[in-house]
Protein backbone atom coordinates (compact mmCIF):
# COMPACT_ATOMS: atom_id res chain seq x y z
CA UNK A 1 0.00 0.00 0.00
CA UNK A 2 1.24 3.46 -0.80
CA UNK A 3 1.74 5.94 1.97
CA UNK A 4 -0.89 8.61 1.55
CA UNK A 5 0.49 12.11 1.11
CA UNK A 6 -0.37 14.33 4.06
CA UNK A 7 -3.52 16.24 3.22
CA UNK A 8 -3.82 19.99 3.67
CA UNK A 9 -4.92 20.79 7.22
CA UNK A 10 -8.66 20.66 7.76
CA UNK A 11 -10.53 23.79 8.69
CA UNK A 12 -13.39 24.01 11.14
CA UNK A 13 -16.72 25.69 10.43
CA UNK A 14 -15.40 28.69 12.39
CA UNK A 15 -12.24 29.13 10.35
CA UNK A 16 -13.20 32.45 8.73
CA UNK A 17 -14.14 33.85 12.13
CA UNK A 18 -10.80 32.91 13.66
CA UNK A 19 -8.96 34.64 10.85
CA UNK A 20 -11.16 37.73 11.13
CA UNK A 21 -10.28 37.79 14.85
CA UNK A 22 -6.59 37.75 13.96
CA UNK A 23 -5.88 34.34 15.48
CA UNK A 24 -2.43 32.79 15.25
CA UNK A 25 -3.26 29.41 13.74
CA UNK A 26 -1.44 26.12 14.27
CA UNK A 27 -1.55 22.66 12.77
CA UNK A 28 -2.98 20.34 15.41
CA UNK A 29 -3.58 16.69 14.55
CA UNK A 30 -4.23 17.59 10.93
CA UNK A 31 -6.49 20.53 11.75
CA UNK A 32 -5.77 24.21 11.33
CA UNK A 33 -6.73 25.47 14.80
CA UNK A 34 -6.46 28.77 16.68
CA UNK A 35 -3.39 28.73 18.94
CA UNK A 36 -4.15 32.15 20.45
CA UNK A 37 -5.92 35.34 19.48
CA UNK A 38 -3.80 37.73 21.53
CA UNK A 39 -1.87 36.98 24.70
CA UNK A 40 -2.31 33.36 25.77
CA UNK A 41 -1.75 34.41 29.38
CA UNK A 42 -4.64 36.87 29.19
CA UNK A 43 -6.82 34.15 27.65
CA UNK A 44 -5.83 31.75 30.44
CA UNK A 45 -6.65 34.32 33.13
CA UNK A 46 -9.96 35.14 31.47
CA UNK A 47 -11.04 31.50 31.82
CA UNK A 48 -9.91 31.38 35.47
CA UNK A 49 -11.66 34.59 36.45
CA UNK A 50 -14.40 35.29 33.85
CA UNK A 51 -15.04 33.19 30.74
CA UNK A 52 -13.43 31.94 27.55
CA UNK A 53 -14.82 30.67 24.25
CA UNK A 54 -13.12 27.80 22.44
CA UNK A 55 -13.52 26.12 19.06
CA UNK A 56 -12.94 22.41 19.69
CA UNK A 57 -14.40 21.15 16.44
CA UNK A 58 -11.33 19.00 15.84
CA UNK A 59 -12.52 16.54 18.49
CA UNK A 60 -13.85 13.30 16.98
CA UNK A 61 -17.45 12.20 17.62
CA UNK A 62 -18.46 8.58 17.14
CA UNK A 63 -22.10 7.58 17.65
CA UNK A 64 -22.99 4.07 18.77
CA UNK A 65 -26.65 3.03 18.59
CA UNK A 66 -28.67 -0.14 18.89
CA UNK A 67 -30.26 -2.36 21.52
CA UNK A 68 -26.82 -3.62 22.64
CA UNK A 69 -24.96 -0.33 22.27
CA UNK A 70 -24.22 -0.19 26.01
CA UNK A 71 -22.93 -3.76 26.24
CA UNK A 72 -20.91 -3.26 23.06
CA UNK A 73 -19.16 -0.26 24.60
CA UNK A 74 -18.65 -2.16 27.87
CA UNK A 75 -16.67 -4.62 25.77
CA UNK A 76 -14.82 -2.04 23.67
CA UNK A 77 -13.85 0.40 26.45
CA UNK A 78 -12.55 -0.04 30.00
CA UNK A 79 -15.46 1.72 31.71
CA UNK A 80 -18.92 0.49 32.70
CA UNK A 81 -20.68 2.33 29.92
CA UNK A 82 -24.04 0.53 30.11
CA UNK A 83 -24.37 1.83 33.68
CA UNK A 84 -24.27 5.48 32.63
CA UNK A 85 -27.69 7.07 33.13
CA UNK A 86 -29.37 8.70 30.16
CA UNK A 87 -28.27 12.33 30.10
CA UNK A 88 -25.02 11.69 31.92
CA UNK A 89 -21.41 11.48 30.72
CA UNK A 90 -18.36 9.52 31.80
CA UNK A 91 -14.61 9.96 31.43
CA UNK A 92 -13.15 6.66 30.21
CA UNK A 93 -10.44 5.08 28.08
CA UNK A 94 -10.00 2.61 25.28
CA UNK A 95 -7.06 0.23 25.67
CA UNK A 96 -5.19 -2.27 23.59
CA UNK A 97 -5.24 -5.99 24.35
CA UNK A 98 -1.92 -5.41 26.22
CA UNK A 99 -3.47 -2.68 28.35
CA UNK A 100 -1.80 0.23 26.56
CA UNK A 101 -3.98 3.32 26.27
CA UNK A 102 -5.31 4.01 22.76
CA UNK A 103 -7.12 7.15 23.83
CA UNK A 104 -8.96 8.82 26.66
CA UNK A 105 -12.61 9.56 25.92
CA UNK A 106 -15.79 11.14 27.15
CA UNK A 107 -18.91 9.07 26.51
CA UNK A 108 -22.31 10.78 26.60
CA UNK A 109 -25.47 8.69 26.88
CA UNK A 110 -28.09 10.49 24.83
CA UNK A 111 -30.76 7.79 25.03
CA UNK A 112 -31.41 4.24 26.18
CA UNK A 113 -29.68 2.95 23.03
CA UNK A 114 -27.61 5.93 21.86
CA UNK A 115 -24.12 6.97 22.96
CA UNK A 116 -21.67 9.55 21.64
CA UNK A 117 -18.00 8.76 22.14
CA UNK A 118 -15.74 11.81 21.92
CA UNK A 119 -12.14 11.03 21.01
CA UNK A 120 -9.06 13.20 20.67
CA UNK A 121 -8.53 14.51 17.15
CA UNK A 122 -5.18 12.74 16.88
CA UNK A 123 -6.74 9.37 17.74
CA UNK A 124 -10.23 9.67 16.24
CA UNK A 125 -9.54 7.32 13.33
CA UNK A 126 -7.84 4.75 15.56
CA UNK A 127 -10.75 4.86 18.00
CA UNK A 128 -13.31 4.64 15.21
CA UNK A 129 -11.58 1.61 13.72
CA UNK A 130 -11.15 -0.13 17.07
CA UNK A 131 -14.72 0.49 18.23
CA UNK A 132 -16.08 -0.65 14.88
CA UNK A 133 -14.08 -3.89 15.05
CA UNK A 134 -14.88 -4.55 18.71
CA UNK A 135 -18.66 -4.12 18.52
CA UNK A 136 -18.99 -6.42 15.51
CA UNK A 137 -20.61 -9.26 17.50
CA UNK A 138 -23.20 -6.99 19.14
CA UNK A 139 -26.50 -5.56 18.00
CA UNK A 140 -24.99 -2.12 17.69
CA UNK A 141 -24.09 0.26 14.90
CA UNK A 142 -21.14 2.62 14.81
CA UNK A 143 -21.45 5.90 12.96
CA UNK A 144 -18.60 8.26 12.12
CA UNK A 145 -20.04 11.62 13.21
CA UNK A 146 -16.84 13.64 12.99
CA UNK A 147 -18.31 15.87 10.30
CA UNK A 148 -21.74 16.04 11.93
CA UNK A 149 -20.69 18.32 14.77
CA UNK A 150 -18.92 21.53 15.47
CA UNK A 151 -17.90 21.77 19.14
CA UNK A 152 -17.87 25.08 20.99
CA UNK A 153 -16.85 25.32 24.65
CA UNK A 154 -17.68 28.11 27.08
CA UNK A 155 -15.53 27.79 30.18
CA UNK A 156 -15.05 29.85 33.31
CA UNK A 157 -16.98 31.07 36.35
CA UNK A 158 -19.17 33.41 34.27
CA UNK A 159 -20.12 30.70 31.78
CA UNK A 160 -23.37 29.55 33.50
CA UNK A 161 -24.76 33.09 33.54
CA UNK A 162 -23.69 33.73 29.95
CA UNK A 163 -25.25 30.53 28.69
CA UNK A 164 -28.40 30.98 30.78
CA UNK A 165 -29.06 34.24 28.93
CA UNK A 166 -29.17 32.29 25.66
CA UNK A 167 -31.17 29.18 26.53
CA UNK A 168 -34.29 27.98 28.31
CA UNK A 169 -32.57 24.69 29.16
CA UNK A 170 -32.38 23.88 32.87
CA UNK A 171 -28.70 24.64 33.44
CA UNK A 172 -29.08 24.58 37.24
CA UNK A 173 -30.28 21.00 36.94
CA UNK A 174 -27.41 20.11 34.61
CA UNK A 175 -24.73 18.59 36.81
CA UNK A 176 -21.01 18.28 36.07
CA UNK A 177 -20.57 15.47 33.54
CA UNK A 178 -24.16 15.61 32.34
CA UNK A 179 -25.53 16.53 28.93
CA UNK A 180 -28.97 17.32 27.55
CA UNK A 181 -30.37 18.33 24.19
CA UNK A 182 -31.59 21.91 24.04
CA UNK A 183 -31.58 25.12 22.10
CA UNK A 184 -28.95 27.82 22.56
CA UNK A 185 -29.40 31.14 20.75
CA UNK A 186 -31.95 29.43 18.53
CA UNK A 187 -29.50 26.68 17.59
CA UNK A 188 -30.23 23.03 18.42
CA UNK A 189 -27.37 21.77 20.60
CA UNK A 190 -26.26 18.99 22.85
CA UNK A 191 -25.44 20.97 25.98
CA UNK A 192 -22.84 19.22 28.13
CA UNK A 193 -21.39 20.39 31.43
CA UNK A 194 -17.88 19.18 30.71
CA UNK A 195 -14.54 20.74 30.01
CA UNK A 196 -10.78 20.55 30.10
CA UNK A 197 -9.88 23.68 32.00
CA UNK A 198 -10.52 22.99 35.69
CA UNK A 199 -13.36 25.53 35.66
CA UNK A 200 -17.11 25.20 35.50
CA UNK A 201 -18.22 25.30 31.89
CA UNK A 202 -20.10 23.86 28.98
CA UNK A 203 -19.39 22.12 25.73
CA UNK A 204 -21.94 22.61 22.96
CA UNK A 205 -22.20 20.10 20.11
CA UNK A 206 -23.97 21.71 17.18
CA UNK A 207 -24.36 21.32 13.41
CA UNK A 208 -21.38 22.93 11.64
CA UNK A 209 -23.77 25.18 9.71
CA UNK A 210 -24.95 26.68 13.03
CA UNK A 211 -21.50 27.16 14.54
CA UNK A 212 -20.89 30.76 13.45
CA UNK A 213 -24.29 31.91 14.64
CA UNK A 214 -23.76 30.30 18.03
CA UNK A 215 -20.21 31.65 18.39
CA UNK A 216 -21.38 35.20 17.61
CA UNK A 217 -24.33 34.96 20.00
CA UNK A 218 -22.11 33.75 22.86
CA UNK A 219 -19.54 36.44 22.09
CA UNK A 220 -22.24 39.11 22.22
CA UNK A 221 -23.81 37.76 25.41
CA UNK A 222 -20.47 37.14 27.11
CA UNK A 223 -18.35 40.14 26.20
CA UNK A 224 -19.87 42.41 28.89
CA UNK A 225 -18.90 39.76 31.46
CA UNK A 226 -15.34 39.60 30.11
CA UNK A 227 -15.60 36.54 27.86
CA UNK A 228 -12.82 36.35 25.26
CA UNK A 229 -12.03 33.90 22.45
CA UNK A 230 -9.37 31.41 23.57
CA UNK A 231 -6.91 29.26 21.65
CA UNK A 232 -5.35 25.86 22.19
CA UNK A 233 -2.29 27.35 23.88
CA UNK A 234 -4.21 28.44 26.97
CA UNK A 235 -6.29 25.28 26.85
CA UNK A 236 -3.04 23.41 27.42
CA UNK A 237 -1.91 25.52 30.39
CA UNK A 238 -5.42 25.39 31.88
CA UNK A 239 -5.57 21.61 31.75
CA UNK A 240 -2.00 21.34 33.00
CA UNK A 241 -2.78 23.42 36.09
CA UNK A 242 -5.89 21.29 36.63
CA UNK A 243 -3.69 18.15 36.47
CA UNK A 244 -5.62 16.72 33.52
CA UNK A 245 -3.71 14.31 31.27
CA UNK A 246 -3.16 14.89 27.57
CA UNK A 247 -2.86 12.01 25.15
CA UNK A 248 0.63 11.83 23.66
CA UNK A 249 2.07 13.32 26.87
CA UNK A 250 0.79 11.71 30.08
CA UNK A 251 -1.08 8.97 28.19
CA UNK A 252 0.41 6.77 25.48
CA UNK A 253 0.02 3.26 24.08
CA UNK A 254 3.06 2.25 26.18
CA UNK A 255 1.24 3.08 29.41
CA UNK A 256 -1.79 1.57 31.13
CA UNK A 257 -4.39 3.64 32.99
CA UNK A 258 -2.74 2.40 36.22
CA UNK A 259 0.64 3.80 35.20
CA UNK A 260 -1.08 7.15 34.70
CA UNK A 261 -2.68 7.02 38.15
CA UNK A 262 -6.07 6.67 36.50
CA UNK A 263 -6.77 3.02 37.30
CA UNK A 264 -10.15 4.08 38.66
CA UNK A 265 -11.48 4.29 35.09
CA UNK A 266 -11.00 0.52 34.68
CA UNK A 267 -14.11 -1.34 35.87
CA UNK A 268 -13.21 -5.00 36.41
CA UNK A 269 -16.54 -5.74 38.04
CA UNK A 270 -18.69 -4.83 35.05
CA UNK A 271 -20.51 -7.70 33.32
CA UNK A 272 -18.84 -9.40 30.36
CA UNK A 273 -15.29 -9.43 29.11
CA UNK A 274 -13.56 -6.34 27.74
CA UNK A 275 -10.53 -5.70 25.59
CA UNK A 276 -7.42 -5.47 27.75
CA UNK A 277 -8.92 -7.01 30.91
CA UNK A 278 -6.25 -9.61 31.53
CA UNK A 279 -3.31 -7.29 30.96
CA UNK A 280 -4.91 -4.58 33.06
CA UNK A 281 -5.46 -7.03 35.95
CA UNK A 282 -1.74 -7.60 36.02
CA UNK A 283 -0.94 -3.91 35.60
CA UNK A 284 -3.14 -2.99 38.56
CA UNK A 285 -0.68 -4.75 40.89
CA UNK A 286 2.54 -3.22 39.64
CA UNK A 287 2.54 0.53 39.77
CA UNK A 288 6.07 1.11 38.53
CA UNK A 289 6.08 4.81 37.94
CA UNK A 290 3.98 7.58 39.33
CA UNK A 291 2.65 10.74 37.86
CA UNK A 292 3.50 13.75 40.04
CA UNK A 293 3.46 17.49 39.89
CA UNK A 294 6.66 19.56 39.93
CA UNK A 295 6.83 23.22 40.85
CA UNK A 296 9.92 25.22 39.94
CA UNK A 297 11.89 27.17 42.45
CA UNK A 298 13.52 29.11 39.62
CA UNK A 299 12.09 30.57 36.46
CA UNK A 300 13.27 28.14 33.79
CA UNK A 301 10.49 26.07 32.28
CA UNK A 302 10.61 22.28 32.13
CA UNK A 303 9.42 20.85 28.81
CA UNK A 304 8.12 17.47 27.74
CA UNK A 305 10.95 14.93 27.51
CA UNK A 306 13.32 16.65 29.96
CA UNK A 307 14.86 14.18 32.46
CA UNK A 308 13.87 14.37 36.12
CA UNK A 309 16.95 13.86 38.30
CA UNK A 310 17.93 13.18 41.92
CA UNK A 311 21.47 12.66 43.21
CA UNK A 312 22.75 13.00 39.67
CA UNK A 313 20.63 10.09 38.46
CA UNK A 314 17.69 10.12 36.08
CA UNK A 315 14.57 9.13 38.04
CA UNK A 316 11.86 10.13 35.62
CA UNK A 317 10.75 12.28 32.72
CA UNK A 318 8.69 15.42 32.25
CA UNK A 319 5.53 14.78 30.20
CA UNK A 320 4.16 18.34 30.11
CA UNK A 321 5.52 21.62 31.36
CA UNK A 322 4.70 25.29 31.07
CA UNK A 323 4.86 28.56 32.92
CA UNK A 324 1.74 28.55 35.10
CA UNK A 325 -0.13 31.83 34.82
CA UNK A 326 -2.10 31.10 38.00
CA UNK A 327 0.88 30.09 40.18
CA UNK A 328 3.27 32.50 38.52
CA UNK A 329 5.93 29.78 38.34
CA UNK A 330 6.91 27.04 35.93
CA UNK A 331 5.09 23.75 36.57
CA UNK A 332 5.32 20.28 35.11
CA UNK A 333 3.71 16.88 35.18
CA UNK A 334 6.29 14.09 35.24
CA UNK A 335 6.62 10.36 35.63
CA UNK A 336 9.02 9.49 38.45
CA UNK A 337 9.97 6.24 40.13
CA UNK A 338 7.94 5.35 43.21
CA UNK A 339 10.54 6.30 45.84
CA UNK A 340 10.68 9.90 44.62
CA UNK A 341 6.93 10.34 44.17
CA UNK A 342 5.91 11.53 47.65
CA UNK A 343 5.07 15.22 47.88
CA UNK A 344 7.96 17.10 49.44
CA UNK A 345 10.62 14.56 48.40
CA UNK A 346 13.97 16.30 48.81
CA UNK A 347 16.59 16.75 46.14
CA UNK A 348 14.48 16.36 43.02
CA UNK A 349 15.37 18.46 40.00
CA UNK A 350 14.88 18.72 36.27
CA UNK A 351 17.72 18.65 33.80
CA UNK A 352 17.03 21.80 31.82
CA UNK A 353 19.36 21.68 28.86
CA UNK A 354 22.25 20.50 30.97
CA UNK A 355 21.59 22.40 34.20
CA UNK A 356 19.91 20.66 37.13
CA UNK A 357 17.27 23.06 38.43
CA UNK A 358 15.58 22.31 41.77
CA UNK A 359 11.90 21.38 41.76
CA UNK A 360 9.37 20.68 44.47
CA UNK A 361 7.38 17.44 44.18
CA UNK A 362 3.67 18.14 44.75
CA UNK A 363 0.43 16.21 44.46
CA UNK A 364 -1.74 16.92 41.42
CA UNK A 365 -3.62 19.06 40.59
CA UNK A 366 -1.78 22.35 40.87
CA UNK A 367 -5.05 24.22 40.81
CA UNK A 368 -8.53 23.42 42.06
CA UNK A 369 -11.40 25.83 41.74
CA UNK A 370 -13.01 26.88 44.98
CA UNK A 371 -16.51 27.81 43.87
Amino acid sequence: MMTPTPAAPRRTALDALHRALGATMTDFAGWDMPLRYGSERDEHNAVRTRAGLFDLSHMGEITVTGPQAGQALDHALVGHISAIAVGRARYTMICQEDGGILDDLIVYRLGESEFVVVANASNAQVVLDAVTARVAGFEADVRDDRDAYALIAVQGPESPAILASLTDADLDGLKYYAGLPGTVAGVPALIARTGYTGEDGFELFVAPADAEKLWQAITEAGSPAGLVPCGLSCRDTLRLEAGMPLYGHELTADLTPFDAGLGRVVKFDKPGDFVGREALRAAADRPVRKLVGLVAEGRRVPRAGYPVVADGKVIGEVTSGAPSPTLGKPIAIAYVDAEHAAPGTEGVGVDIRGTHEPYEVVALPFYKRTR
Partner: protein
Amino acid sequence: MSNPQQLRYSKEHEWVSAAEAGVSTVGITSHAADALGDVVYVQLPEVGSTVTAGDTCGELESTKSVSDLYAPVTGEVTEVNQDVVDDPALVNSAPFEGGWLFKVKVSEEPGDLLSADEYASFTGN
Protein backbone atom coordinates in the same frame (compact mmCIF):
# COMPACT_ATOMS: atom_id res chain seq x y z
CA MET B 1 4.28 46.63 14.17
CA SER B 2 6.59 47.86 11.43
CA ASN B 3 10.33 47.50 11.68
CA PRO B 4 12.03 50.81 12.53
CA GLN B 5 14.05 52.08 9.57
CA GLN B 6 17.06 53.16 11.65
CA LEU B 7 17.74 49.62 12.94
CA ARG B 8 19.45 46.72 11.25
CA TYR B 9 18.34 43.13 11.50
CA SER B 10 19.75 39.61 11.66
CA LYS B 11 18.17 36.57 10.06
CA GLU B 12 17.80 35.17 13.60
CA HIS B 13 15.31 38.03 14.24
CA GLU B 14 17.45 40.28 16.43
CA TRP B 15 17.68 43.99 15.83
CA VAL B 16 20.72 46.15 16.48
CA SER B 17 20.83 49.92 16.71
CA ALA B 18 23.38 52.22 15.13
CA ALA B 19 26.33 52.60 17.51
CA GLU B 20 26.43 55.59 19.81
CA ALA B 21 29.96 56.09 21.12
CA GLY B 22 30.67 52.57 19.89
CA VAL B 23 27.79 51.00 21.81
CA SER B 24 24.75 49.40 20.12
CA THR B 25 21.50 48.20 21.64
CA VAL B 26 20.17 44.71 20.81
CA GLY B 27 16.67 43.27 21.00
CA ILE B 28 14.38 40.88 19.20
CA THR B 29 11.94 41.96 16.53
CA SER B 30 8.21 42.28 16.82
CA HIS B 31 7.91 39.46 14.29
CA ALA B 32 9.93 37.17 16.59
CA ALA B 33 8.04 38.25 19.70
CA ASP B 34 4.72 37.50 18.00
CA ALA B 35 5.93 34.09 16.92
CA LEU B 36 7.10 33.25 20.46
CA GLY B 37 3.92 34.26 22.22
CA ASP B 38 4.04 35.49 25.81
CA VAL B 39 7.69 35.62 26.89
CA VAL B 40 7.99 34.49 30.52
CA TYR B 41 11.74 34.30 31.09
CA VAL B 42 14.80 35.84 29.52
CA GLN B 43 18.35 34.80 30.15
CA LEU B 44 20.81 37.44 28.99
CA PRO B 45 24.59 37.45 28.64
CA GLU B 46 26.53 38.81 31.61
CA VAL B 47 27.85 42.34 31.64
CA GLY B 48 31.54 42.21 30.76
CA SER B 49 31.23 39.00 28.74
CA THR B 50 31.98 38.90 25.04
CA VAL B 51 29.35 37.84 22.56
CA THR B 52 30.13 36.65 19.06
CA ALA B 53 27.98 37.43 16.05
CA GLY B 54 25.93 34.39 15.07
CA ASP B 55 26.52 32.56 18.38
CA THR B 56 23.94 31.97 21.08
CA CYS B 57 24.20 34.34 24.00
CA GLY B 58 21.03 33.71 25.96
CA GLU B 59 17.54 32.29 25.77
CA LEU B 60 13.94 33.33 25.70
CA GLU B 61 11.19 31.17 27.16
CA SER B 62 7.60 31.52 26.13
CA THR B 63 4.53 29.52 27.09
CA LYS B 64 5.12 27.01 24.34
CA SER B 65 8.84 26.87 23.77
CA VAL B 66 12.34 28.00 24.51
CA SER B 67 14.38 29.81 21.87
CA ASP B 68 18.03 30.68 21.70
CA LEU B 69 19.05 34.28 21.58
CA TYR B 70 21.78 34.96 19.00
CA ALA B 71 24.21 37.84 19.10
CA PRO B 72 23.80 39.94 15.94
CA VAL B 73 27.23 41.55 16.43
CA THR B 74 30.52 40.77 18.17
CA GLY B 75 31.64 42.73 21.20
CA GLU B 76 31.62 43.23 24.95
CA VAL B 77 28.31 43.42 26.80
CA THR B 78 28.13 46.75 28.66
CA GLU B 79 24.61 46.63 30.06
CA VAL B 80 21.60 44.32 30.27
CA ASN B 81 17.99 45.46 30.57
CA GLN B 82 17.05 44.61 34.16
CA ASP B 83 13.48 45.77 33.48
CA VAL B 84 13.00 43.02 30.92
CA VAL B 85 14.53 40.42 33.26
CA ASP B 86 12.00 41.46 35.91
CA ASP B 87 9.11 41.78 33.47
CA PRO B 88 9.72 39.66 30.35
CA ALA B 89 6.31 40.70 28.95
CA LEU B 90 8.06 43.90 27.81
CA VAL B 91 9.52 41.84 24.97
CA ASN B 92 5.99 41.37 23.67
CA SER B 93 4.58 44.80 24.42
CA ALA B 94 7.52 46.94 23.28
CA PRO B 95 10.09 44.80 21.45
CA PHE B 96 11.82 47.79 19.80
CA GLU B 97 11.72 50.06 22.85
CA GLY B 98 11.34 49.11 26.52
CA GLY B 99 11.85 45.45 25.62
CA TRP B 100 15.47 45.89 24.47
CA LEU B 101 17.76 43.16 25.80
CA PHE B 102 21.36 44.26 26.11
CA LYS B 103 23.96 46.79 24.98
CA VAL B 104 27.23 45.83 23.40
CA LYS B 105 30.49 47.65 22.62
CA VAL B 106 30.78 46.51 19.04
CA SER B 107 34.17 45.22 17.93
CA GLU B 108 32.99 43.54 14.77
CA GLU B 109 29.83 43.58 12.76
CA PRO B 110 28.92 40.95 10.19
CA GLY B 111 28.38 42.20 6.67
CA ASP B 112 25.06 40.47 6.20
CA LEU B 113 22.80 42.44 8.56
CA LEU B 114 19.57 43.43 6.84
CA SER B 115 17.88 46.78 6.42
CA ALA B 116 14.31 47.20 7.67
CA ASP B 117 12.94 46.62 4.17
CA GLU B 118 15.16 43.61 3.55
CA TYR B 119 14.12 42.11 6.88
CA ALA B 120 10.47 42.73 6.05
CA SER B 121 10.77 40.79 2.80
CA PHE B 122 12.81 38.10 4.61
CA THR B 123 9.92 37.54 7.02
CA GLY B 124 7.36 37.80 4.23
CA ASN B 125 5.67 40.92 5.59
